[in-house]
């Protein structure tokens, strides 16, 4: 079995939000890697990190030992995403993204008739993958194992704390000032009642009601007349 100098890796460009999710991950397609093997079927092998050392290339895909549905308990690895060189052409195509989404087929995940299903991964991993080229049932080429791929684990929403918002400064200022104003007004009201009882204030006459009394002018003409009569 030839060893091709290629390490499978997660897609780097473009930046994908769903590069790793809870049950899928996205690999870059192995372009310009298996050019010498025109008649081969290229398979993706997915295994748990601790079983890669004992992986046997000669076990055929589609058998129980390589069935997705038996992974990871009864099958140490599974093989999926069967392709030929035509699927991985070497020509550079701008504008297309060349990815393989591992775990995207949900319809066949429980279907024992489809052992090569690309089903969602059962746990967070860590997983290692490699590509294996078979001619007929003979392995002819393989890549290196990838670096361990860890998937995302989700926390429970109960772990979100919603009580750590303190009181903002604005709210404290608002409450304080309003309380002080209200207290002053109440004090003023009390003062009003106190002064209502007593007449100590006297009351400035500036606001008094306009008196509807007219002043009559006394005509003292008789006083002036008398001296004139004496003379």
């Amino acid at each position, binding site marked *: 079995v030839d060893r091709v100098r290629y390490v499978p890796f997660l897609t780097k460009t473009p930046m994908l*939000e769903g590069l790793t999710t809870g049950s899928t991950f996205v690999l870059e397609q192995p372009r310009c890697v298996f050019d010498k093997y025109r008649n081969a079927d290229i398979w993706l092998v997915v295994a748990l990190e601790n079983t890669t050392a004992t992986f046997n290339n000669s076990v055929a895909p589609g058998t129980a030992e390589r069935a997705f549905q038996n992974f990871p308990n009864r099958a140490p690895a599974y093989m999926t995403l069967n392709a030929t060189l035509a699927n991985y052409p070497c020509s550079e195509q701008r504008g297309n993204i060349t990815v393989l989404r591992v*775990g995207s087929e949900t319809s066949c995940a429980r279907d024992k008739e489809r052992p090569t299903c690309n089903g969602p991964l059962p746990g967070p991993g860590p997983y290692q993958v490699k590509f294996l080229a078979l001619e007929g049932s003979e392995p002819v080429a393989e890549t290196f194992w990838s670096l361990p791929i860890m998937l*995302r684990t989700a*926390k429970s929403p109960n772990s979100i704390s919603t009580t750590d*918002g303190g009181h903002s400064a604005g*709210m404290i200022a608002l409450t304080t000032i309003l309380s002080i104003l209200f207290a002053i007004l109440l004090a003023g009201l009390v003062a009003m009642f106190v002064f209502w009882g007593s007449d100590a204030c006297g*009351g400035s006459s500036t606001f008094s009601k306009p008196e509807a009394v007219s002043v009559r002018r006394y005509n003292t003409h008789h006083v002036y007349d008398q001296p004139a009569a004496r003379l």
Partner: protein
Amino acid sequence: MCGIALTAECIYFVSDPHGLYPLLEATENNDIYAAAWIGIFVGFALFALSILGIIGIIKSDRTLLLVYIILMLITFAFEMASCITAATHRDFFTPNLFLKQMLEKYQKTEPANDNDKWMIEGVTKTWNKLMLQNHCCGVLGPSDWQEYTSAFRDTHNDADYPWPRQCCAMNAQGIPINLDGCKLGVPGYYNSNGCYDAISGPVNTHAWGVAWFGFAILCWTFCVLLGTMFYWSGIEY
């Protein structure tokens, strides 16, 4: 005049132009709306009382002015309560609050009781509308759906629905432009921003509007009342 302005402003808030009320209802913390309702009535009361006050000053009638002062104080107290409520409850609305609510209620299929069912419907409809109209996803981003388990995740498996379909970029018919692109998270085919800004903007405006506008009116009312008290004590019998 201030009374009319306050009434108008509070009516605007109560009419909920951004459609966010179900989210606030579901937090069981919708006192901000109570504060706005109080604001409407206080505004109306201020307006009515100001007419009374003006009549009292024209006639220089002690009793009338006394009634005016006491009623204004009561109204002042209500408005004060409304302002403080609005300001205090605004502080509750952190991203975490909305995140937890969204994760626990959005598209939940097993309501615990009738109250829960009505909250779930409100939250689901509001979030769907939010995500479609504002082109956003989750509270902080689509990663919210990956980092936490949720009621949505219970019924939608991770491989087919890393995030809800509403997070996908849609065409005019409301269908995702490219579903695979959306599921992969290819830039341009999904909404990468979080919706928190679209929520906190209106909620903040609402809360601060009720609180600070009410505060300004109360300061002005304070001056007017002090002046009235001095005037009252200067009126002769």
